[in-house]
């Protein structure tokens, strides 16, 4: 809606307005976002001298900038980013590799669905974080248990989205395909799989967000490296600015990885952009 309004205004004003107005209208939404962030930053910076309660113990943005400059030069930080990213990739990929085929089988085979669904519904409500102790006992290394927690976080979402996508394929498509002479393989490959793809992609995007939540939680509790571990260590040694830098780094990493998955989703569903 906001975009529409901006477009309408642009159309009306751009022919007559001054260059500054033109630039603003063209990049309006970007400028507004930037100004908002700047204003918030400044408010934060001056909240301390002004003595606003609550923010008194939080380091100011300038301290954070200094701390991030230091942190960005230390190999520990990059090592932590690298480790967390690897765990994300492993857990997320495993969740797709196991979740998508299992979802397919469950949605297309009643017997398997009836036997697997109650088990899934019993285990699903357990928060992945609650699995951390058992995971540490079960898996031989901390690395494996962390990846397992990340996997769990993504797995349920992938599974449910795949089941949902496959079981809601419009019967008009399968009927049309049958008339056109499709066999079971054609039906799966050309009809059900692509029809379920948008829902599977949604599962991927959501589960990527959960993966970051899980990796940070698992590293905080059970890790010996990674951004979550670094964040907790910084807290323990009272380096609050460093804690905040870690938080922003995790936020940025989550944002970038979700964007990457969305891009992947666009490649997997090229038709959906063309409606």
């Amino acid at each position: 809606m906001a975009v529409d309004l901006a477009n309408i205004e642009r159309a009306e004003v751009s022919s007559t307005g001054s260059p500054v107005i033109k630039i603003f209208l063209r990049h309006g939404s970007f400028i507004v976002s930037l100004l908002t962030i700047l204003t918030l930053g400044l408010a934060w910076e001056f909240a301390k001298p002004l003595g606003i309660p609550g923010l008194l113990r939080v380091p100011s943005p300038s301290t954070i900038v200094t701390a991030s400059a230091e942190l960005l030069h230390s190999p520990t930080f990059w090592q932590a980013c690298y480790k967390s990213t690897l765990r994300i990739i492993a857990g997320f990929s495993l969740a797709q590799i196991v979740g998508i085929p299992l979802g397919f089988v469950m949605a297309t085979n009643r017997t398997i669905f009836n036997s697997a669904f109650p088990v899934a519904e019993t285990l699903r409500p357990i928060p992945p974080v609650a699995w951390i102790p058992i995971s540490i006992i079960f898996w031989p290394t901390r690395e494996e248990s962390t990846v397992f927690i990340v996997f769990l976080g993504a797995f349920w979402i992938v599974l449910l989205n795949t089941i949902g996508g496959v079981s809601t394929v419009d019967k008009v498509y399968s009927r049309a395909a049958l008339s056109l002479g499709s066999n079971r393989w054609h039906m799966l490959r050309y009809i059900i799989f692509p029809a379920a793809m948008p829902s599977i992609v949604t599962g991927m995007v959501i589960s990527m967000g959960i993966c970051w939540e899980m990796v940070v939680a698992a590293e905080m509790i059970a890790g010996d490296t990674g951004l979550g571990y670094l964040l907790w260590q910084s807290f323990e040694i009272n380096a609050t600015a460093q804690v905040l830098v870690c938080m922003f780094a995790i936020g940025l990493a989550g944002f970038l990885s979700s964007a990457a998955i969305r891009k992947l989703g666009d490649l997997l569903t090229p038709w959906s952009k063309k409606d």
Partner: protein
Amino acid sequence: MDGALSIRNARKIYDAKTAKVLALENIDLEIAAGEFCVVVGPSGCGKTTLLNAIAGFDTLTSGSITLDGDPLASANACASPDARRIVVFQNGALFPWRTVLWNVTCGPVMQKRLKASEANAQAMELLARVGLLDSAAKFPGELSGGQRRRVEIVRALINQPKVLLLDEPFRALDALTKNVMQEYLIELLTFVPKTVFFITHDLEEAIFLGDKVFVFSSRPAKIRQSLTIDIPKPRRHDVLTSPRFLEYKSMLSGAIHEEALRAFTIGEKELA
């Protein structure tokens, strides 16, 4: 030419949870090879039920349907769907995730009747005939409603079905596009003659397209009136105002209005 469709004593009872619903009551229809048969009736009367039985999507409770003598449906049994009878669905069933060309060629290729290259050549020829050569590489979502309907009819025809089943194919189109599509269909069928079973709500569409028009009663569907339309084909839209056309319209409109009113009063909903 083959494609003679014979429907005898077709009866369908739906086993709804609360009560049994009689959808079709002793329908007898004989459609000769190459004939364009139109069924008109109020919403939810059972037209689509009959079409589903011909297509192999549903069974009959009793009675039989044969195509050139081969049984398609009998009591509680039906031959599975195949390319002998292809449906063009109400809201369209082009696969949105595949290109127009893939949609058109998938039938003969999946049936292993044609190689991909042969199917492509035939598809391009048919697409050219309906003016959609440029759209072959597009996704259905990029086409207009009228273009999609044309692709879907082409997709049906390339399979050389014995009978074409059209379930209110032009329902979602605006009135002007609908008129053009009707002319397109008639023109296409002069090139590739087919037996057609066409369902509609629209009386003018029925008379304009049909060789025979059957008026179905509100549920349970019975044949309330049947009429042979004796206007030579190919028909153009100017026949809509011709005295003979208007005469046919007045012969049928009374019965249709009465049935629509009955369905309206009962509050019929579509079952299948």
